């Protein structure tokens, strides 16, 4: 049996609806558990390779771990626990956040926005000055 792919386990847990904090913590604990199993097998006289093989067998398959976690509704992210509420809350939250998007974009690009505003003011002043000169030249010309 191959060494478990712990990164893949995190991905599969999150994909199955487990809350990311539970997924990361579980995998971190399982990784330590695997290391403990390897250490125990090495202490019993197994070679490093054999110890890893034994540890992987004792730990169980990734599918079993994902099934055991998925069977516990309380460990799932809230949209998976309350899908109907999520269907209402998510669109409303998006609508609420929508007006803030341009404001946030403006704050994030404040220097660019300031230069753009200054250019607009400068262009307006230049046009006004030009019109004033034309008017004066008509009056006194």
């Amino acid at each position, binding site marked *: 049996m191959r060494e478990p792919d712990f990164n893949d386990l995190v991905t599969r847990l999150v994909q199955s609806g487990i809350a990311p904090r539970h997924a990361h913590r579980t995998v971190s*604990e399982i990784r*330590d558990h695997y*290391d403990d199993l390897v250490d125990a097998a090495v202490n019993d006289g197994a070679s490093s390779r054999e110890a890893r093989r034994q540890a992987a067998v004792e730990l169980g398959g990734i599918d079993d*771990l994902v099934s*055991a976690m998925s069977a516990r509704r309380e*460990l799932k992210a809230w949209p998976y626990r309350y899908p109907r509420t999520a269907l209402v809350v998510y669109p409303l939250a998006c609508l609420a956040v929508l007006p803030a998007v341009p404001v946030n974009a403006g704050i994030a690009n404040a220097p660019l926005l300031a230069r753009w505003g200054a250019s607009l003011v400068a262009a307006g002043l230049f046009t006004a000055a030009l019109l004033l000169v034309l008017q004066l030249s008509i009056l006194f010309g």
Partner: protein
Amino acid sequence: MAKSNPPFMSGVPELLLLRLLDNREMYGYELVRSIKEVTGEAISLGEGVIYPVLHSLERNGSLKSRRKPVGGRTRVYYSLTKQGRGRLQDLQDDWRRIQNGIETALESPGHA
């Protein structure tokens, strides 16, 4: 490979974990080893599947956890809360009631 536990074992892992943690705080690997030891290997929990049970018990307030650095690793130690002691008492009472019922039934097969 260890013999798998029959389906009627549902709820037993929870009872065993709470019972062991009633004595002292432990981490996952230690708990699996202890369960094998105290049950004479009659009950063997999947090494990895103990964590969903522990997390569920923590989430419902029966357990609390703390991280503790030990030998270069950060272990998550679990301990029983007051609510967990109540839950343990309830599970023990349920288990004894079921055990008595089954024993009575087994001792008088003609009336079962």
